[in-house]
């Protein structure tokens, strides 16, 4: 009998749960945060619709743990050096400060008030807003005044050390430009995630269209990806090993990244540079990078691009680097080659590589 009741209950429970509640319950803070993060994560975020509720909740709640969770969520979504769409960052940079000030002025938990102040730094708010926060902290007379005033000093220090022309661009009237909207629409139709990781993947498989859209959507062309790699080192390096895109597609992808400001002089976390990565690619990739201004002598501490081309047996790329002025000492060559090749063309290249350039560039 008890078994039967349990069974009936078991069957009834999901039915009851499936029924929509008649009165719409306000979403929990946790749900609000999850919703906002999901919307930003899949590129469908409309700031006014998906982010405003976070700020409203932060303005109204007096529960310290909820305030802390909301501040952390805004920090994750809006950090100025993060990989989220520019529209999301711009919206939070403009709309969050008034709410953060009200939290900082309130009688809530001291650490939460401190976090609210420091979030201004993470969002990279305008200098005038920082001044207001610094003044607020200096004038604090609450029991937590020591901690609050210290945060004010941190903000003042940070402001001082900022480069002078680093003011964030003024947000457009809609908070999102037409270009960015079009890019987000395209990505949504293609089921492409709007994230820095996806930029790396698209760069790796040389999908120039998706790369362009992700960059238009505000993903940083110099994002740091898995293993500290840059999108450019995926497009002009690792991608050549693992993906078999056409050369034209790869060159187009590299073009898009460079047009959007990908840094040719960047050193990867493993010390490698873009001309070292390019040794894994067809010759025209290295040619394009050199034409765009990559420095032929920029190598890691351990190996130069030319040395790496020799090690990988890429005589075509080695010849290109030598033609662009890369040189090695005879001693290094002797150490590098266990036995020099017998092929006369290769020997001639090694000789050129050890002959000082006629006009030494400074």
């Amino acid at each position, binding site marked *: 009998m008890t078994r039967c009741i349990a069974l009936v209950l078991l069957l009834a429970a999901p039915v009851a749960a499936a029924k929509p509640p008649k009165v719409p319950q306000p979403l929990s803070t946790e749900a609000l945060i999850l919703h906002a993060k999901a919307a930003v994560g899949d590129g469908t975020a409309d700031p006014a619709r998906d982010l405003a509720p976070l700020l409203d909740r932060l303005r109204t709640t007096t529960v310290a743990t909820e305030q802390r969770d909301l501040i952390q969520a805004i920090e994750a979504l809006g950090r100025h050096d993060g990989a989220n769409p520019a529209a999301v960052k711009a919206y939070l940079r403009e709309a969050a400060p008034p709410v953060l000030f009200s939290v900082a002025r309130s009688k809530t938990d001291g650490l939460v008030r401190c976090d609210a102040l420091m979030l201004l730094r993470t969002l990279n708010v305008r200098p005038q807003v920082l001044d207001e926060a610094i003044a607020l902290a200096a004038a604090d007379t609450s029991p937590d005044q020591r901690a609050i005033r210290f945060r004010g000093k941190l903000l003042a220090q940070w402001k001082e050390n900022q480069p002078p022309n680093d003011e964030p661009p003024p947000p457009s009237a809609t908070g999102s430009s037409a270009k960015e909207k079009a890019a987000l629409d395209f990505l949504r139709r293609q089921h492409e995630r709007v994230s820095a990781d996806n930029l790396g993947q698209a760069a790796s498989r040389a999908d120039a269209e998706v790369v362009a859209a992700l960059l238009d959507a505000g993903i940083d062309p110099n994002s740091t990806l898995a293993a500290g790699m840059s999108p450019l080192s995926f497009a002009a390096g690792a991608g050549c090993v693992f993906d078999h895109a056409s050369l034209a597609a790869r060159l187009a992808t590299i073009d898009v990244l460079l047009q959007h400001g990908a840094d040719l002089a960047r050193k990867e976390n493993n010390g490698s540079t873009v001309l070292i990565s390019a040794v894994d690619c067809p010759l025209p990739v290295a040619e394009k990078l050199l034409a765009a201004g990559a420095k032929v002598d920029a190598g890691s501490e351990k190996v130069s691009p030319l040395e790496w081309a020799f*090690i990988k047996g890429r005589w075509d790329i080695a010849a290109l680097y030598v033609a662009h002025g890369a040189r090695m000492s005879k001693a290094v060559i002797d150490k*590098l*080659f*266990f*036995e*020099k*090749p017998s092929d006369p063309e290769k020997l001639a290249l090694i000789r050129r590589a050890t002959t000082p350039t006629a006009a030494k560039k400074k």
Partner: protein
Amino acid sequence: MRPTCFALLLLIAATAARAAQPAAEPAPQIPHMSHEQALAHLQKERLAVTPSNLVNPLLSGDAETVEALLSAGVDANDTTDMPKPALRLAMSACARKLETARILTVIEVLLAHGAKVNEAAPSELSPLMVAAQHCPAPVVRRLLRAGADLKFKTSLGISPLSMAFITGNLDAAEALIEGGARLSPEAAAKLLKDHQDDARRVALVKKAQGK
């Protein structure tokens, strides 16, 4: 019933092979499988018919599973799904100090399924190159019998024989020299530098220069 029958057949075949070949190195027992037997083995091991499933059996010297995958249709020379070609990977197993007999059996299985002994890509190492680093002499001799190229060189000019000396695998070096490998004066000088006290090495380098 069938597996017993199969094992019995194997035993008979192996005994026959041993009787026929009174060589110094015992002939490995090769686990031939029909397509059906191969699929049954893979089902038992819960393995899909895909090249990358070769990696583990190659590195652990599991010749039966290698045979099953190849008999079930996996290409012994696949490089699309494999990090390295199968024969080359099998040589890496030497570094794990596996029994020589097991490695020899895996080699037989791979060769029987058409694994290429010499690789084309210049920046890749040939199986003999890897064997020169890690493998005992019988493995090196087996590759040479299968036609492995003694004149292969890496992009930086290292031959299998140089490699055997560089890694100190003098047994392999000796097998390579017996197989006809030679050293240039340039390589010989580099290999003897700081090793003049090592009598066996000095003698082998001399022999490899035809002295």
